[in-house]
């Protein structure tokens, strides 16, 4: 059961299961644990070891493929895509995802574009003070 323990999923996490899988594989790529060419378990293997539905893993792999993070060769399984600068582009994508979530929350709270921009600038200043 520990075959693919680089992913853990949680039923109590409000995010859909497939997104948890996508984010964790992206994370492993971003930190360099999964390098270009690394083989991923087959869809049915991963579903079985995580005890989630096949469709969940299928959807996660499709999403990762769409994002250019993995490539799937028919009948040969999936590998981490062999594209230059993958690690930094995944890092950038992660950053963009977080930013989009924050902006959406701001919009939900009725903030204007200018207000959101101001908050981002404030957050930047705040973080910079923290680093120093």
């Amino acid at each position, binding site marked *: 059961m520990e075959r693919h323990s680089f992913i853990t999923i949680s039923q109590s996490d409000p995010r859909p299961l497939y997104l948890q899988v996508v984010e964790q594989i992206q994370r492993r790529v971003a930190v360099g644990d999964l390098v270009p060419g690394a083989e991923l378990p087959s869809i049915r*293997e991963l*579903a*079985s070891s995580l*005890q989630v*539905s*096949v*469709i*969940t893993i299928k*959807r996660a792999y499709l999403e990762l493929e769409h994002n250019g993070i993995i490539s799937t060769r028919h009948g040969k399984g999936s590998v981490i895509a062999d594209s230059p600068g993958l690690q930094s582009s995944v890092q950038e994508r992660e950053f963009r995802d977080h930013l989009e979530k924050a902006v959406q929350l701001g919009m939900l709270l*009725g903030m204007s574009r200018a207000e959101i921009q101001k908050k981002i600038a404030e957050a930047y200043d705040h973080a910079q003070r923290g680093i120093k």
Partner: protein
Amino acid sequence: MTTLLEASTDAGLAARLQNITKSYAHFQLKKIHLELVKGSVMGLIGPNGAGKSTIMRILMGLVNPDSGTVSVLGTTISSSDAAAKQDIGYFSDDMRLYKPESVGWHMQFVRSLYPTWDDQYAADLLRRFGLIEHQAVKGLSHGQRVKAMLLLILARRPKLLILDEPTNGLDPVARHEVLGELMKVVEDENRTILYSSHNTQDVEQISDSITFIDRGHVISAGNRDEYLDRWKRIRLQVSDDWSVPNLDGLRLESSFRSLRVLSMNQFQDSTMERIQESGATIESIAPMTLEEIFVSTVMRGREEKSL
């Protein structure tokens, strides 16, 4: 999303029910349609007495429908074809093992009937389920009995598993073991599982598609992720003169002073805009669990009928 789980031809289906009806004195199954895609897991969810077990018995040829057609693994089952049943594994809590005999005796018995019996797999299951071969059935706990029955079915390696409440009454560890074995079965993309459960969390976890049944009707069917994506619970802050905007699938669940809680079964990006245009402030949008979705679907269905 439908592309993830689609059988373009009958060859991609493990089973199909078309227009099935069956009447009993106090219960009717009405025009049941059901398509089970090969290599998938379908969860059948419904309240007690909804008709889940009857549907499964019809698929097994144990009950003959009044009308409609049943095909299982490419053959029409109404003839109670024994050959097709070789490839089907059926589990129900009504089934009894022979009390004075041991687990191992049952294994030998089933082995003698089914040429597809896999000794190595049976031995592995025995170990993984923590069962003792020479232990008599009368000494087994409920969980051990369920696992023993599943072992007898799984070790035959049937192409289609029809499991009526296989996790009912199991403790969390036994449930985990059973779900794990079911997922191992569909590592083989030619094998298919249909199972029913009260435990919507089990169904949510391992099903590719879900069929909701209430009072003899299929009230909703589709792939699991589609359900979870489409359904949202929305909390709003509103003024006194606010009314629910006219959006398909939007339903007021409860109100308290300025708070309104709605459920939405056709959520899309434009839903948020439309609600904001109505003058409401969105407090939160949260996913719903399959259990909440199921209850809401049943209640909506019953309301529509009583109108």
